[in-house]
């Protein structure tokens, strides 16, 4: 099922794409044919990517699990390792180990309506879900995508949102705390979007990622509108170094985010979610 949990394997950058001034995507290919043939993942899982001589960071896999030969990682240039990755080009080699953690239970959700709620720039873990569902459109009911950003200029992949919106039985809603240039969405917090979302709370499963306070607030609104807590799944982030539940950095209550998450069933995480210090 998984290969190389303790140390990386060589991977090559086969494509690089600048998504915004600070966000870029690397498409990676595992070099060892044996490793590549055994590598499988589910949306929501992550890899540890290693920059030679510098270190490792956890990055979600946004590509389709049906194409494990082209692993897409969307990265924000924010620290030492991610900045190094931003300088790479096609043909450069890095290390990759994974996949780690629990992904979204997408097979379990088949036949149901799906809502995606994502805030800020943390949309990578759910972009893989949106792509996954659109590739298998007949297996799922209605698809509602709610995206919130701080500033309207923060939104990346605008053309993708426009394309998603044109899909059958799909609704896309955007919100920005601060508006700028012509903005196709509302100005205000993401929770405002539930006013405009056309969905049946009992028939819908919701997947969320982004700032924890946003997730918490959005879950409250959803539950108030009749969604069941058990129909909500969230993806979390913490400092991760080993990715196998041993180094202790991603401790969240009585769980390790790298192992028991990053995707959590909302009832399992709600108690400590957005509680300062956890």
């Amino acid at each position, binding site marked *: 099922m998984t290969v190389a*949990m*303790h*140390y*990386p*394997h*060589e991977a090559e950058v086969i494509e690089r794409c600048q998504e915004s001034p600070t966000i870029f995507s690397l498409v990676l290919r595992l*070099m060892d044919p044996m490793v590549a043939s055994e590598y499988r993942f589910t949306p929501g899982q992550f890899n540890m990517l*290693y920059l*030679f*001589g*510098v*270190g*490792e960071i956890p990055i979600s896999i946004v590509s389709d699990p049906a194409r494990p030969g082209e692993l897409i990682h969307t990265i*924000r240039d*924010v*620290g030492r390792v*991610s900045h190094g990755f931003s300088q790479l080009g096609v*043909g*450069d*080699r*890095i*290390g990759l180990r994974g996949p780690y953690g629990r992904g979204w239970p997408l097979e379990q959700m088949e036949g149901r309506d799906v809502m995606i709620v994502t805030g800020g720039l943390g949309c990578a873990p759910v972009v893989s879900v949106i792509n996954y569902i659109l590739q298998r459109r007949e297996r799922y009911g209605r698809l509602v995508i709610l995206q919130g950003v701080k500033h309207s200029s923060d939104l990346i992949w605008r053309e993708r949102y426009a394309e998603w919106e044109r899909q059958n039985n799909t609704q896309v809603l955007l919100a920005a705390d601060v508006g700028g240039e012509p903005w196709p969405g509302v100005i205000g917090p993401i929770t405002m979007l539930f006013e405009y979302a056309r969905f049946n709370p009992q028939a819908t499963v919701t997947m969320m990622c982004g700032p924890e306070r946003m997730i918490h607030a959005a879950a409250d609104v959803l539950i108030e509108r009749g969604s069941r807590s058990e129909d909500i799944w969230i993806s979390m*982030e*913490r*400092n991760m*170094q*080993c990715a*196998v*539940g*041993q*180094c*202790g*950095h991603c*401790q969240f*209550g*009585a*769980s390790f985010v790298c192992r028991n998450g990053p995707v959590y069933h909302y009832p399992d995480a709600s108690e400590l979610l957005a*509680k*300062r*210090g*956890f």
Partner: protein
Amino acid sequence: MECCFPVLPALHRLFTWLAGLGFVPIYSMTDPTWAVYIITDQMPDDVTSGFLPGQDFAQLLAALTGQGYRCVGPTVRDGALVYDTLQGVRDLPAGVHIQQSPGSYRVEFSQGKRLFGWANGPQALKPLLFAPREVLWQAQRTAGGELHFSQEIPEPLPTAVIGVRACDLAALELQDRHFLETDVPDAGYGARRRQLFLVAVNCTRPAETCFCASTGDGPAVSRGYDLVLDELDEGFIIRSGSTSGDGILDLLTLQPVSPQQLGAATDATVRAAAMQGRQLPGRNLRDLLFGNLDHPHWEVVAARCLSCGNCTSVCPTCFCYRELDQPALGGESSRHYREWDSCFTQGHSYIHGFTVRPDTRLRYRQWLTHKLGGWHDQYGRSGCVGCGRCIAWCPVGIDITEEVGAIAASPA
């Protein structure tokens, strides 16, 4: 044989009297039942126990060395008892006593002959298995920019540790659970663990900081050892707890254990439990602590805590480590290390521009709610074994039993 005696004085007198007559009542903590064993003058034919006169202790070290073990044991260095390779019995701390109190650890020397008349040093077994710093893997880069990775798995020598305490065995069981009982067992820890031979000793002289009786982990050893010793003035009762232990006992010239000796050994551990003045307010404090996340006492502790991480370093169950790269100067290779980390550091909870626990109140609360709360869900019991090291080695003398006690005394 599992034995851990409650400390009621009347029962204590009864046990001592019974033992003197050759009857030894046994109470098993793991399987709460009583049984009375009759001790005969002759030891049974099997060699699972016997008496080793004090002057013959070198026999034990010789037997272990002969079987290929490196003997590691407590020795005094830099004002503390630390584990080091033993050249002989003379390296063991004969006559040494340790005074421990909040923020204080003092070695005292006496004319006594006992080797184990002290509670513990700053180290448990942890550094012998979970190395403070080690290479996990290495990356090589060719001139063409290709990368090759190789895992580093240590090849440790068989090691026998002399003088292991009940609290340390309980902690070892927890670290085994963390590092090995998972679908991704830790290679370095596992390699060292498989080479370990444990000579435990029942505690007879707890420190003022000890509270293992209240966590249920001591002072008597109940499981997880190869050999266990009861130290008496004239020598040691030695028992085996494993087939490797049986193999070593076979090599020793032992005398039968007298009922008086057994009685004295029992008496000593019962007294060691009774001597402990500290205790935690319960075995499972998860609901208490998670139910009091906003208790004002967290602020009181934070005002004293230096966030130095001494407590997590000496704690025998704390397992956090950070990973870091150290490239070679030539640029052709890089070693990926791990080294002990602490949840009291700024970097521990750092995530792309944000620190989850920026202040000491949140860090101390994280440590305690995890150690005494979250562990129950993750590892089936509390993460505290009552060794008291975090109390003695805290530079400002913060006492875990007092801090939890304060919250328990006025819960929300």
